[in-house]
């Protein structure tokens, strides 16, 4: 089934929230799934796998801490790319100044939308590497290597690349495909954000109850 990018973003945002991320992080997770889909990458699939893996994990365990200058690792052993991505993007100016390394990170593909935003924010291209794969972001997003959809990277490096950052690229795709099981898994996470239906809420919550046959 063909999905609009808006549908993918909305479902992904709700799913991320349902899986326990804060609203602000969930908003960015929705944008990340959309960005990857527009780039022809399986954003919703990777997100569904990550949310399944981290379901129930504490923020503190997934969040990055600076083990030594320029190297960030998770207290719990494995970084969440949705949290690390947001932190990296918040530190866009620092990325511009020199190399940053991440320790063991799940679903590294999900970092790309955040790093693209960081590259645009500071006007410098960024090059990111893991498992023999190299991606240059902010500069027509070049990729070499075939580890883009690796479920895990033991080490990731992010380096500023001395080329100018051009205007944002036009979305290459306007639609996305999502395997049925991925849509089901994301929907199951999203459903956690919906309040169970009661007759009381149905009548009072939306404020209706008047006739419409007039």
């Amino acid at each position, binding site marked *: *089934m*063909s*999905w*609009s*990018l*808006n*549908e993918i973003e909305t479902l992904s945002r709700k799913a991320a929230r349902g899986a326990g*991320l*804060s*609203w*602000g*992080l969930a*908003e960015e997770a929705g*944008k990340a799934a959309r960005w990857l889909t527009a780039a022809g990458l399986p954003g919703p699939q990777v997100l569904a796998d990550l949310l399944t893996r981290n379901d129930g994990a504490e*923020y503190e365990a997934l*969040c*990055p801490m600076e083990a030594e200058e320029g190297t960030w690792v998770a207290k719990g052993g494995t970084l969440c790319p949705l*949290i690390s991505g*947001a*932190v990296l*993007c*918040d*530190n*866009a*100016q620092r990325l511009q100044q020199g190399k940053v390394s991440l320790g063991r990170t799940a679903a590294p593909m999900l970092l790309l939308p955040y790093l693209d*935003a960081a590259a645009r*924010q500071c006007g410098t291209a960024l090059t990111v590497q893991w498992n023999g794969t190299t991606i240059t972001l902010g500069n027509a997003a070049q990729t070499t290597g075939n580890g883009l959809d690796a479920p895990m990277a033991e080490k990731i490096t992010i380096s500023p690349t001395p080329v100018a950052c051009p205007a*944002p690229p036009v*979305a290459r795709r*306007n*639609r996305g495909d999502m395997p049925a099981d991925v849509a089901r898994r994301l929907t199951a996470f999203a*459903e956690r*954000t*919906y*309040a*169970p*239906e*009661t007759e*009381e*809420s*149905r009548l*009072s*919550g*939306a*404020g*209706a*109850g*008047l006739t*419409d*046959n*007039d």
Partner: protein
Amino acid sequence: MEKSAGQTVSPRDPNHVMQLHRLGAFHQSRLSFMRILLRRLQGEVWTFDRPVFDIDARGVGRAVYSAHGPDRSYSLVAFANDLPPEKRSDRVIATEWDATFTLFDGVPTTEDLDRLQDNVPRQEAGRISEKELSLSRANRSVRLWDHVVECLSHGRQPDRQKVADVGYLMRTTAVYGSGKFGAADRDMTSDRPEFLAPFQVEMLSVFLTRAFVMDLVEHMASMRAPDTAVPLDPDLRRRFGIGNSTGLGMAPFLLNHPALLNNWIAAREEALARIRSLETAHAPEVETFRRFALRARLHAEEWTSDHPVQIEKLAALRHDTATLLAHLDTVDLTADMPWNRLWLWSEIALSVEGQELLASLLMEPYPHLVDDLATCMAADEPATWRINGAMPLDDLRALVEDIYGWALGIDWTAHKAQARIWYTSEAKLEPRLGERFEEDLDAYEQPLCPGRDAARMYTDLQTSDEATVAGFLMRHPEHRHVARRAQIAGRLPYAEIRDNTIDATVMPIDMLRLKLSFFGACHFDPRSDRWVRINMYQHAPFPHELGERSGDDWAYPFLTEGVV
């Protein structure tokens, strides 16, 4: 947005404008999306045709209404239904409607129509594609529909008072756009000149829907009595708008699109500031203003509601229009910054309803100062959305104090201050407003209460020793959404509603009216504190009349039949 040369009056303070009781008193204006659309259709000489109209005597079938612009065509595809009364509901929980619609990108083939026939009548349960730009439905106003068919089939025109009492033959409910249910994303069409301004897809869909509904009622009369039936008198026909019935779904939109909200309000405030800054006014401009004030009085008289709050507001509005017209007879409005003088007078003499009506009326004589602002009303949301992590934490503290100062003064431990809770229901996924202390909903709360959330963040900001926003948010991911809002509103002053959206006394209809006024809706008629009916395109020309009649001047009733 650039200030005009010589502008001496600044746009109004967001702390004054962005309060719910004022936003809930906004009226349509030259900058409403319906008027922006019809000005374009007229200016570019769009043409219209009806390639398909295949509807039987029971009113069941399909029709296509196409609009052809300079570069592209769009078609409203309509499916008409014979709906039993027990199924007629305007609520989002309905499963069948009198008519369903989609706006097709181009002119559909028979294969397209067959595919759409399998999906559009099912609305949320169906699926549309990137060839479709919107999805909507409408129900008849049964009392007026039956009356009109009855009269026309007997060769008579319907009763004018009955037409005035209801104002439309069908009410749309949801009009979905922007990628909903598989439709094309807004990004796919937002660079087309005809869709640069907000909600032009939806407004075009509704404009063509009105034409279809009027054709349908005449068709039904003609099928019932082919020998005696007559069409509607063209003047009476234009008195029918298209209704809309809207619930809470619209309210979260305003909170979820702060940059867009800013640009709507900023355009309106800039228009007002430009006009208030004028040193002088020419006599014909003053006369134009006076005639619009007379028409606004007529509009206020025709506008009815059964809702106690709206009844009170309407009484104030009628009093205001009388006060304004009396005042106009006593002042010289040609010199000494006349409109600013009038504005300052209104702040003392008129209710909030009247003040905001005056803001709309002042734009009427000045299309050259106002209409170009329509191009500023779309938003490049990604440009202001990312958090600036390098911002010093003191700057974020200062932003919160400036934008949410009103919220920092509220005692949030008091039940009254957060008596309500926004959530999404399991059924049909509709937004709802619950009672926090009576229902067990806290786990499902949506982030639609920026004031309280900003106050919570402020408490942590006061004790944080982090130097930057990046460091603070790493420790406090729970504040991330409201930190983003504060930064957006720091760049865009009208981005945030500066009022408590979860207070015990909040009226969600204020948010609905704000949005609907920018659409260009009239006759705002609340059915409860969270559910409203409105009228759209009343008095507007039909597609085939554009060119003969103004696509711009129709939003207030005319003083005498067919003139002005």
